[in-house]
């Protein structure tokens, strides 16, 4: 039987749509959340581009995964972080990233929490396992 509570991190560093890695990393997050791991997710480097507002893959004829990303919180993927420097380098305002769910009470959008690189490094150090995409 699976033991509960191990600290597991998923990092997402690839840009979306040019390849399927981001989409398949989300499938991993959804499953890991059901295993009641102590799961955290970090968007880093080109991975932060997945959080860009207003993405619409219809013109590519690709289903895409924006709906899944917007429902992370519903799937109990709640510890979601994004690297401040990666956003800045890519010209993405911290308050412009997409919501990954809504607050149950207030209905306010929940966004990934913006962290400094040193905070992410510290968090990484404490993990039992890290799976990277």
């Amino acid at each position, binding site marked *: 039987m699976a033991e509960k509570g191990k600290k597991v991190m998923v990092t997402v560093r690839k840009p979306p749509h040019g390849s399927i890695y981001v989409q398949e990393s989300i499938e991993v997050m959804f499953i890991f959340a059901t295993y009641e*791991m102590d799961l955290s997710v970090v968007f880093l480097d080109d991975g932060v581009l997945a959080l860009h507002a207003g993405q619409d893959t219809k013109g590519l004829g690709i289903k895409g995964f924006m709906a899944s990303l917007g429902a992370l919180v519903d799937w109990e993927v709640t510890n979601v972080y994004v690297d401040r420097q990666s956003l800045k380098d890519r010209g993405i305002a911290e308050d412009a990233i997409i919501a990954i769910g809504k607050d149950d009470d207030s209905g306010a959008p929940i966004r990934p929490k913006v962290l400094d690189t040193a905070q992410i490094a510290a968090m990484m150090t404490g993990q*039992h396992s890290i799976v990277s*995409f």
Partner: protein
Amino acid sequence: MIISILVLEGPYNHEASDSAYNFIQAALAKGHTIRGIFFYDDGVYNATKLMDPPQDDRHISKRWSELGATGIDMVVCIAAAKRRGITNEVLAPNIRISGLGQLASMIHESDRIVTFGD
């Protein structure tokens, strides 16, 4: 130490499969336990028995099958495999198709997970 391995790229095209295999051989030689090998993303292509490389080159799915025969749990992700046409029909011996939950179980039951990809 109990180790699990995640392979994210297909055979021959990227070195990931070879690095994973060489790492695993070294770990076994040192007496460590490989709990499982999970094939995800294009990694699922490692599992086709239909591959037929030149005779003087390595046969990657045979190598995996041989590891599977020693009792190492070899799992191909079903969702990634369906997209890419890896079905039971073409599956090499001693490899099974199952869900991502198996990756979670491998992590729970291992001291370390090592990812090989591109």
